[in-house]
């Protein structure tokens, strides 16, 4: 089993306030890894450090190493935009560009990168929407606004948009928290399918979701990595008393 991402002694701050403390963990390739923990524990900051989005926030700082296929994404001379192309992100609230059609939403990233070849764009739209399991529902309405779709469809459109730039890793920040149970269930199934081709890292508040969809789970508390292991071990027999208390609802 090879590791796609290796996080070494990662620390992060917001305006001088430390939010991540010495995180070291290795993320397996083509697996789903869940990050769980109470609000404010640093889950979102951790994944935002993995594609250098953390540094976009004014006053934010990170130290340590994040190796993607062995290369440090924080090395001098590494272009953060290239990193973000290899490590895509899907956010909590579906955020299709409201003025754009489904078609344009899907290939927005490609167009921003200067791709204008109609044939290539057409191919990417179909491939990405199929991969996001949305194609059959929208193929007749590609010209309609992305905002006209249901919440679950919008989130799958955002996933298609992330897939269109052919990333290797997909980060998902609570991707189902704004969706109804049926739409959330579809996204969960999609996450499992995506893990065949991509490395998926998901932040979730929903522990049952972490238990259902992920192969590995990391528990963060007050910015520290308390426990990290197979989802089976974490949810059946956690080693740390803190993990036990959190996942059984004794605190959090």
């Amino acid at each position, binding site marked *: 089993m090879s590791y796609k991402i290796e996080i070494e002694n990662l620390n992060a701050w917001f305006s001088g306030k430390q939010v991540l403390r010495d995180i070291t963990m290795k993320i397996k390739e083509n697996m789903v890894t869940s990050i769980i923990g109470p609000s404010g524990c640093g889950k979102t900051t951790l994944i935002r450090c993995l594609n250098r989005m953390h540094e976009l926030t004014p006053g934010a700082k990170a130290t340590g190493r994040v190796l993607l296929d062995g290369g440090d994404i924080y090395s001098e001379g590494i272009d953060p935009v290239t990193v973000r192309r290899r490590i895509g992100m899907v956010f909590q609230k579906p955020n299709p560009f409201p003025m754009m059609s489904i078609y344009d939403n899907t290939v927005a990233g490609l167009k921003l990168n200067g791709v204008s070849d109609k044939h290539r764009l057409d191919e990417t739209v179909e491939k990405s929407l199929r991969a996001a399991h949305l194609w059959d529902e929208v193929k007749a309405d590609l010209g309609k606004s992305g905002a006209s779709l249901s919440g679950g469809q919008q989130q799958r459109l955002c996933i298609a948009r992330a897939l269109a730039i052919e990333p290797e890793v997909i980060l998902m920040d609570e991707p189902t928290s704004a969706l109804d149970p049926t739409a959330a269930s579809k996204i969960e199934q999609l996450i499992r399918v995506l893990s065949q081709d991509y490395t998926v890292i998901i932040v979730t508040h929903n522990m049952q979701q972490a*238990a259902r969809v992920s192969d590995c789970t990391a528990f963060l508390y007050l910015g520290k990595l308390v426990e990290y292991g197979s989802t089976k071990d974490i949810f*059946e027999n*956690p080693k740390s008393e803190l993990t036990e208390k959190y996942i059984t*609802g004794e605190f959090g």
Partner: protein
Amino acid sequence: MSRIIDIGLEELSVMLCRMGELTYQAISLSLKGCLNGTNEHSQVCEMSDALVSMSEQAEDKAFELIARFQPVASDLRTIKSYMKIAYDFARYGRYALDISYINEQYGGLKHCEHWILEHIEKMSEKVLDMVRISIDSLRKHDVKLAETISKTEKEVDSMYFRYLDELVKRASGTNKCTISSVLIVRYLERIADHATYICESVVYVATGQKVNLR
């Protein structure tokens, strides 16, 4: 503030402790009948029926807790173990019933040779000690007490094989067949029972109906 699941876990725990005490009474009573020559069958039968019914209730409760709370970690381990323990208690009841049935059908051990009576009495004491340890360790969640059972279990195993060896040594050719056949038909009957339990589960999985095929 206690968690909602704790109320259900506590109910389950109380139910198991009640089952534990009832099993002890049922086994003691059936052994007493065999050793003293008294007939306790109808009383043991009632206790065994009650244990089966309590085991089903415990299983239902555990099932409800799983469906409603999606338990994990120690909660999940507790529920899984409680389901198994409820079944084990029901088995205690069934064995007590089997012993009292043998006493009623074929007579107890009172008029057996002294060495037989003595061996069974000693073995009964050991087994009742083990039953008590299992009940008390469960009630107190006492790991150290639970671990003490290992020594007695080995002693009971050894008493079992020593008894069979002694029986065979003293038996003539025909009696050896009797001993072997009694043991074998006993296990065959147990296998048949378990095949039936599996079929009951198959029906339940497909239909949701709990049927009794016994």
